[in-house]
């Protein structure tokens, strides 16, 4: 029988990569700073860029540079935007009475990819977790309160992680908004999310948004 893990013992050790060009070495080191990119992969990417036309590489670096310099965060929903207000918030065809509350901009991308949701978003920037030093002050909860109060929001759909921290955040928001006439629902639970919203496949996500539940089924004794 062949032990299944043995092969990795023979994987090359690239920690000691030796370069004949400092320019290549610098580029490799920059790529290797990215998550999920080891030195080996970084080298492969750099060598690929070396093969490409100079204009194409310029287009690549310009896109990355502009993205970082020019990107803005929507002043309404805190999603990424090219202008003060994002393309979703300015779109009059979208249902502005429905707001889906998510943790990060990755969740917006995941839900938008389903093409099943026509409301607006609110990006909290995380969930309540004292263990990670995250309290209400670190999240965009105040701006959510203002939106609900002033912008005719009728339903908030909570699409947060199905964890204690996610539940705490739903409870917190429900308590903050308890005097406002807004219906709070959550995306259907019990569906395998693989931990994070961004990994849920599009069909599952679309189904769970369609089958959302009123908050009483989700947070125990929310109104106590």
């Amino acid at each position: 029988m062949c032990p299944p893990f043995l092969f990795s013992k023979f994987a090359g050790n690239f920690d000691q990569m030796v370069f004949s060009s400092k320019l290549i070495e610098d580029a490799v080191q920059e790529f290797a700073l990215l998550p999920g990119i080891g030195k080996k992969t970084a080298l492969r990417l750099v060598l690929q860029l070396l093969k490409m036309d100079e204009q194409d590489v310029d287009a690549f670096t310009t896109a990355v540079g502009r993205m970082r310099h020019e990107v803005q965060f929507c002043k309404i929903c805190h999603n990424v935007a090219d202008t003060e207000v994002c393309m979703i918030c300015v779109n009059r065809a979208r249902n502005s009475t429905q707001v889906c509350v998510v943790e990060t901009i990755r969740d917006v991308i995941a839900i938008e990819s389903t093409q099943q949701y026509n409301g607006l978003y609110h990006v909290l920037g995380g969930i309540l977790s004292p263990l990670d030093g995250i309290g209400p002050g670190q999240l965009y909860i105040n701006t959510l309160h203002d939106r609900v109060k002033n912008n005719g929001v009728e339903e908030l759909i909570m699409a947060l992680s199905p964890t204690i921290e996610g539940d705490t955040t739903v409870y917190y928001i429900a308590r903050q908004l308890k005097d406002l006439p807004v219906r709070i629902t959550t995306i259907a639970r019990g569906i395998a999310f693989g931990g994070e919203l961004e990994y849920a496949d599009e069909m599952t996500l679309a189904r769970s948004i369609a089958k959302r539940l009123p908050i009483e089924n989700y947070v125990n004794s929310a109104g106590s």
Partner: protein
Amino acid sequence: MSRLNKIILVQFRNYSSASYQFTAAVTCITGPNGSGKTNLLDAAYYLCYTKSYFNASQQNNVQAGTDGFRLEGTFEKDARKEIISCKWKQGKKEILANGVEYDRITDHIGKFSSVMIAPDDIALINDGSELRRKWVDSILSQVDSPYLDKLLRYQRILLQRNAWLKMQSTVTTIDATELEYYNNCMAEDGQYIYERRKQFLQGFLPLLNDFYHRLSGGKEILQVAYESDLSQKTLAEWLQYNLQYDMRYQRTLRGIHKDDWVFVLSGMNVKQYASQGQKKSFLFALKLAQYAFLSKEMGHLPILLLDDVFEKLDQQRIEALLSIIRAPGFGQVLLTDTHEDRIRLAFGQGADIEFVRL
């Protein structure tokens, strides 16, 4: 009855690749010290609970110089075969039953059970309350499926609540909304756990007395006193009432995470006053009562794992232990010993025993 008929170990501690069959009622694993007897026993435990009896860290289970391990056990329960495999690689654990991965690893807990008795177990009597809570939790998690979920949730919220209490020392105005949520959840889960722990003793105590009497030959009365904050107030009341102290000490002072059990033998506190021999009998009685409790509640016999217990046991207790584990209706036994002769002699002629020599 459930049995482990075959086990495969790959890169598990000192084993690079090995396979063993267990066919008799009693399997004795022999070999010199350091040959891996305890590791083989622990591998059987691991297949039942997806964790080591001895090591909290999964990395310690991996053979030096490798990055993962695999265990596979062929179990038999009610004449049905099931192959359980546990893989651990670079921090990721995967448990499969007949090739199908579980949705949640906790779904495996309670399917196959085993009870280990090992030399350091006397700590269950001598050491702090944490070991006793873990021991009771390990039993109740198997016989009551909501118990483990509620316990895990309680423990996570306890961490968040304590972190929240610490955070408040740095803020000017206190917003107690999160605390309200933590309190609600902890009160609900804590109350459930308290009731189950209390109920547990009713079924457990008669078994404990019975095994102690069989081991010691005496008629002493054994008691186990369950000490919990929740016997005075509900947890909801405690969390409310104690808040100013919790805030001052920046941690949750009252709750089921402080529970303890006091072992009492004929009115005497075992931890403080019992002799070494009495403690040993008490420990064996606790473990055998655990075995009997699990088999009664789960409807099948656990596997008894005895790690090096015969060497340090006197003749009278060896005979008493043997008469229990050789009685008809007792389940599979795996044991380790450095001396094959000692075990042959103890079990005598005609015993259904096989030897695995490492």
